[in-house]
């Protein structure tokens, strides 16, 4: 087995463990390369099926192409797709693009808060009807107790400390200083009522591993990741007002792999195009403690 085989086997093992242990399980899908690979790994683990809902937190400021691509893939792969959003903040225009919040406060309002309340079922959830392509409010409001997230250890400092199975308190808090031990492929799968567990099947993957795997498996990824003529491509996807492409002429998966192997981008942080990471020190960690992915 080569490295990709080993990474794949480990992720599949973790996904199956999560599916066995958590009755109310969901996977967060951001439409980006990481969570799309994770979705592919779920199809590997469950032999073509995805036996839990995918949850997308739609800030209403995602690059429009991402939303179209999300809905198309959901119908093609027959996914149970749910989205949640902060309807009130959007109605009141309390966002960064509307000029009423700074970037960090906007992340909290449009991502962290709706994530928490969508997972808990406090706020409405909309489910895609695969036949008609319409969104309907989901009557099922059960709280998810196991939430699969595509975080990777090499992305950024605070994520390097994550567990594969990482408990969250009732308020979605992450107690970095007191995490459960994790060894011998045994994970924290018992949790007190009201708490939930974040599950991280991609923790040991690097950005290069992901793209190599996308290439090997021919996984469809959104074309925003490629140079389409202007010498730029997105390396990390998010909301359009806060996400910048990098200079790159990689036009295909194979060219992205070559670019990453060349080391051209190895000294530039993967999330360098994500403006919210830069406002203030240790910001992403603050966001993550609060429940951010």
């Amino acid at each position: 087995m080569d490295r990709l085989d080993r990474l794949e086997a480990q992720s599949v093992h973790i996904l199956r463990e999560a599916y066995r242990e958590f009755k109310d399980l969901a996977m967060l899908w951001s439409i980006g390369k990481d969570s799309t690979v994770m979705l592919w790994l779920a199809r590997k683990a469950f032999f073509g099926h995805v036996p839990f809902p995918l949850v997308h937190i739609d800030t209403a400021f995602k690059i429009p192409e991402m939303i179209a691509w999300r809905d198309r893939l959901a119908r093609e792969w027959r996914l149970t797709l749910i989205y949640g959003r902060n309807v009130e903040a959007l109605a009141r225009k309390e966002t960064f693009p509307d000029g009423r919040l700074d970037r960090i406060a906007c992340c909290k309002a449009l991502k962290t808060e709706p994530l928490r309340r969508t997972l808990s079922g406090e706020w409405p959830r909309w489910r895609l009807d695969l036949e008609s392509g319409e969104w309907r409010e989901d009557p099922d409001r059960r709280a998810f107790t196991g939430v699969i997230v595509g975080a990777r250890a090499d992305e950024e400092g605070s994520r390097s400390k994550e567990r594969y199975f990482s408990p969250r308190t009732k308020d979605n808090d992450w107690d970095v200083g007191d995490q459960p031990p994790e060894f011998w492929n045994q994970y924290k799968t018992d949790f007190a009522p009201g708490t939930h567990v974040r599950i991280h099947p991609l923790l040991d993957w690097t950005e290069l591993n992901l793209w190599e795997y996308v290439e090997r498996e021919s996984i469809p990824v959104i074309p925003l990741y490629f140079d389409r003529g202007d010498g730029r491509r997105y390396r990390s996807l998010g909301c359009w007002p806060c996400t910048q492409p990098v200079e790159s002429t990689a036009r295909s998966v194979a060219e992205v792999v070559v670019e990453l192997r060349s080391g051209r981008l190895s000294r530039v942080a993967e999330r360098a195009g994500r403006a919210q990471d830069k406002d203030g020190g240790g910001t992403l960690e603050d966001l993550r403690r609060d429940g951010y992915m």
Partner: protein
Amino acid sequence: MAIEATAREQMNVVIVGHVDHGKSTVVGRLLADTGALPDGRLQQVRDLCARTARPFEYAFLLDALKDEQAQGITIDAARCFFKSATRDYIIIDAPGHVEFLKNMVSGASRAEAALLVIDAKEGVRENSRRHGFLLSMLGIPQLVVLVNKMDLVGYAQDAFERIRDEYAAFLRGIGVRATAFVPVSAFHGDNLVERSPGMPWYDGVSVLQVIDGFTPAAPPAERPFRLPVQDVYKFTEDGDDRRIFAGTVVAGRASVGDEVVFHPSGKRSRISSIEGFNTPERSAVGVGEATGLTLSTQVYVRPGDVMCRADQPPPEVATRIRASIFWLGRRPLATGGRYKLKICTASTSAYVREVVRVMDASDLSSGVGRRHVDRHEVAEVVLETVRPIAFDRTAGGAETSRFVLVDGYDLAGGGIVTEALAGASLFEQRAGERRAAFTRGSVTPEERHERYRQRPRLVLVTGGDAARLQQVGARVERRLFDAGRYAYFLGLHSLEAGLDADVASGPLSRDEHVRRLGELAGLFADAGCILVAAVPGLDPAELRVIRALAAPSEVLAVGLSAGSDVASDVPVALSLPADADVEACADRIGALLAEHAVVLDFQI
């Protein structure tokens, strides 16, 4: 940088040692000297130190979290990536503070090799020994010892050799051999990546050269095939009718057509196909693969069973084991305490029967006669599991003999099975003790028998369809009552609401419900009553527990097939088909009671 044509080899290395002996400095320096840092990161940290009037330290590079910078110690096992000419490394920086031992264990268990750092000036300390001991228990095969801060002892050869000799002797005592001892000064970069001219008396190689010489963990392909069943899938969507036994192969190899045996259940079948998604058709699976198999016959196998090849040696199966454990729990591990034991994909309740001896991990002195194991201690214990477990104790069988213990909601300890033990089960022993302890009135069982014209029995109705079990159980009670018998129907929910309210949910709640049902059945039997209980999804181990505790009352188990899937594996006195209606079921159960002479003159 040259373009790499293919994926490179990768190795996980953990770095451990006593607090302040300089682990993070070693890692920071390795990252800096191998060119693994993002542009400007080093300067950023230097600037920050200058602004805050602190001397620059390489360790700050790793202290990505503000918690750590505030306390100046590593809280968790941070992962960093660097490359040598030989391969890519993931270095896991494990904390040295004793409070953070669980993080050190988490980090170290992922490693194929370990760097253990000892301060040349402070010498071997408590956690130097404790970490060495845990590395050996965790099974980390390759170790290099760094005697750090050589600059603080004037790069003196005798200071290095004194520590080397003392620590090598300690390692010998626990059966571990270090690949090398290297004198280093991480702060100055001596002997980390390049050999240092400052220690001409040292004739070995640099730390990086030592780890470049390590070999990646070799998977145990030559051992008997072991596939712990993680789950059994039947996704019916889009007409998929495959019944797939999924799991990760932890040892050996198996092919389509091989006869397989599941342990502990003893079920047998033959591998019919190897399933996958977006993979070419396969005829064999080997160690490390997360796979899924279909079988040629319909067998009832639960997650947790270990699939083995029939032509290879089977694992051992036991309910009582001797084990070496390390304890990380907030509460001490106590004799008589009940924990959840997870081994491979199986989990079961386990009781601590005996703490044989407790070893102080820092000096390896041992204490006997203790009844508990405190946090951070290592001990030898005897455990009894409610469900039998399968394991291999043969050399190199660590993948199937390692287990963890869960206390409440928390993973609190780890251990290795060292011996399978025999003897009366805990429940058989308990039932005997309990009967001896009863304070009785003067009414004898014979008097009750004459009065009620029946023998007390537990009629246990089980199957997959809970609602149907309730209907049948209630109907049997009604028939018995109408016939003038002394009978009571107890659904599992009746216990949950009252007697079991304190264990209504949470880990192991099911095992405790079952235990209490057994105890309750014993009392009803003593009262001369026929107790009818419905227990959905009863398994053979649960039936054994109930049998032991309900004695002297006999248990008559009745299986109601749910029809849709493979039948259960519980040995039953009577099995009823899925299409039998409630009245027909009650008829058959009545006949069973007559047949077993429970009720002598009974027609229902």
